[in-house]
Each structure stands twice: as C-alpha cells, then as structure tokens.
C-alpha cells in the first residue's frame, strides 16, 4: 500500500483539478445562454434572406451558377467546424471522424475533396498529420461574428465561382455540430452549394445520398402563393446580391449553432470531469484512511509484541 504522504498529495492535486473543472463548467454554462441569445438575434436576418430567396425562386426563372453549374468538375470543398480550445469532450474528434468519413465517401465517388478547416484544434490535427488544407480560420469559435462568416463565405463563394481549370469547386459541404439540446449535440453534414431550389412536392431522395447528408435547400410552393413581384434594379442584380448573402447567412447560422454546441459539450465534459474528480478524491480518502489504520494497527502490534517479549524475559 502506498504511503500516506503519497495519498495526501494525490488528493490535494485531484482537489485542485476538481476546482478547475468546476470553474470551467460554470463558465461554460454561463456562456450557453449568451450563445443562444446571439443565435436568436441573428435569426431575423436569416429568415428575411431565406424569404427573399423563396420569393425570387417562385417569381423568376432562376439561372445563376450558385444554383448548379453546368461544367463538369469533380473538385468539391469540405468545411469542418471544430473548436479553438479543448476541454470539450469529444466535440472536435467527432467532427474530425465525420469529416474523414465524408472525405472517403467523396473520394470513392470519384471526387477530389478540398479541405477547409475552422477552429484551432482541427487545424493542428491536420497540420500534425501533414494533410493538405486549402484554407483555415481560427480564433473565434466561442463567439463567431458576422465578419468571420463573411470571410469564410467569401472564400468559399470565390472557390465555387472559379472555373474548374482555375481550381474551382463544384460542390461545398459543411460538417458542423447541431445543437439539439443541452445534453444532445449531433454532427451533421449539409451540402451548402449548389443551393437547391425545389418545389415542395419534390422528394428529397434525389440528392440525399447518405442518411446524414442532407442539402441546404430552399423549398418553394408550386402554386403562386406569392403576389407579383418587382425586382430593383433587375432580377439578375438582385440574385447576384441575395444568393451570396444567403450562403453567408447559412454559414453564420452553422457557426453559431456550432458555438452553442461547443459550449454545451464543454459544459457536459467538465461536469463529468468534476464528478470523476470527486469520486476519485473519495476513493483516495478511503484508501488513505485504510493505510493510516493499517499503520496504527501495525504500530500497536509491534508495541504489544515487544511488551510481551519484555514480560517474558522478566519471568
């Protein structure tokens, strides 16, 4: 059995770790409310732009590269949303796992995926393994603002709009963690580009190849539920403005959901870590008591034994 001193020092260090975990948990839980507020505040804009795209889809004949390119190009872009900091349980590793699976699927379909990574943990993962990464963004996964969404949106939009021989891509997938509730967050893969504009009765089967891979689609109703529209200055100009903004707004939405999920999984991980630290301290205290008891018993036996020996000598 280890010495009492060893137990004492292990208990002390576990207790100080427990304090750190507990503090991290409290920080995370206070940030969740904030992350949710930020996500809610951005909702009106994304609703407005979604509505505008819907209105455009039902009133004009949409013809824009963003809705589908004619040229044949098997390069595709994949954006993985990981976290900047650790202590979030399996958050980053499950994103990386899903990303790898998606990359393999795409490659087996004969496509050439290009990887874009957001979040320091993901960047260092791929850098350590010397993998080719097209572009990276880091430093703002806790509270993603409009500016980072704009940067990512612009970079990917440019990659998409470039012709195939200049290294353009024909599709763009995003891997992120959806915030379902405080205890459940699910990794999801969405196809962002090309944007699907479809009639509501159309089944989703056509473009959903795997159960987890759904599309960023704009659903419109077949009948004219929208009144006649006028577009200023021209339908093409409006489309040129609205569609990139729509993509950017969708990316921003994903970033915000991912941030909320990151905070929630950090809180869960830290809660479990605090619990584990507590039970470890309990177990170590029990062992410390046992070892103290054992040493007392041993001392008593030694004293009694030696006293007996002395008595025997006198007789």
């Amino acid at each position: 059995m280890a010495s009492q001193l060893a137990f004492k020092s292990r208990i002390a260090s576990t207790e100080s770790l427990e304090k750190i975990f507990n503090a991290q948990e409290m920080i995370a839980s206070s940030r969740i409310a904030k992350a949710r507020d930020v996500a809610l505040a951005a909702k009106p804009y994304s609703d407005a732009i979604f509505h505008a795209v819907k209105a455009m889809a039902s009133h004009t004949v949409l013809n824009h590269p963003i809705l589908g390119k004619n040229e044949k190009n098997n390069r595709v872009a994949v954006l993985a949303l990981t976290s900047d900091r650790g202590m979030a349980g399996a958050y980053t590793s499950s994103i990386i796992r899903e990303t790898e699976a998606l990359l393999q699927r795409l490659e087996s379909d004969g496509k050439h995926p290009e990887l874009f990574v957001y979040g320091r943990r993901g960047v260092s993962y791929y850098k350590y393994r010397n993998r080719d990464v097209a572009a990276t963004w880091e430093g703002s996964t806790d509270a993603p603002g409009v500016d980072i969404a704009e940067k990512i949106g612009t970079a990917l939009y440019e990659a998409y709009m470039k012709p195939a021989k200049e290294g353009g891509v024909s599709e763009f997938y995003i891997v992120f963690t959806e915030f379902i509730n405080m205890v459940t967050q699910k990794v999801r893969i969405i196809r962002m580009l090309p944007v699907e504009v479809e009639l509501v009765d159309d089944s989703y089967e056509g473009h959903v190849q795997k159960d987890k891979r759904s599309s960023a689609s704009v659903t419109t109703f077949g009948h004219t539920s929208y009144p006649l529209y006028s577009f200023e200055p021209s339908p093409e100009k409006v489309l040129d403005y609205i569609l990139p903004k729509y993509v950017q707004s969708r990316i921003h939405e994903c970033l915000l959901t991912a941030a909320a999920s990151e905070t929630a999984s950090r809180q869960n991980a830290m809660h479990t870590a605090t619990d584990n630290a507590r039970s470890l301290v309990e177990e170590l205290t029990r062992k410390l008591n046992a070892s103290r008891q054992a040493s007392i018993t041993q001392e008593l036996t030694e004293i009694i034994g030696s006293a007996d020996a002395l008595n025997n000598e006198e007789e």
Partner: protein
Amino acid sequence: MAQTAGRTMDVNIVAEDRPLWSGQATSVVVPALGGYMGILPDHEPVLAIVGAGTISVTCVDEEKSFPVEGGFISFEENTLTIGVDKAFC
C-alpha cells in the same frame, strides 16, 4: 395619396447579427441602387438592393434614420423587411 393617409405598414430592420428596429411607419425612404426609393403602405411587392446611404423611417409621431452600407429590402403583404449589411447604431 389620399387612400394611404393614416395607414401604416410594419417595418422590420434587421442587421446580420441582430434586429435593429421594428414598428409601424407611414413612409420609408431607402437608398436603392438606382436612387432613393420611397415606400408607402400597400406598395406593390418588391425586392430591391440597397446601396450606401441613410434609411429614413417616418412613423406617426417621430422620424428615424439609419445609416447603412448596403443591404436589401423586401415588401410584401404590407410588411417591409430591411436586411442591413453593416449597422452603425
């Protein structure tokens, strides 16, 4: 103009990261790409791009103005939605 007198429309001004203002207005002037564009209640449905300038909102008892760098407006069913790229206020 007579039939629009006293009528109001719902106006929602939203920036990319948060809602800016919403309320009832009697008229709104936006800096559309082709020049300033006035919107009165019961305007025909329109989707327009907004350039840099100032959005002026006339309510029943006050006037408000919002400087913007760009954005879009959408008017439908007597509701005007203004999506603003960058808000200064």
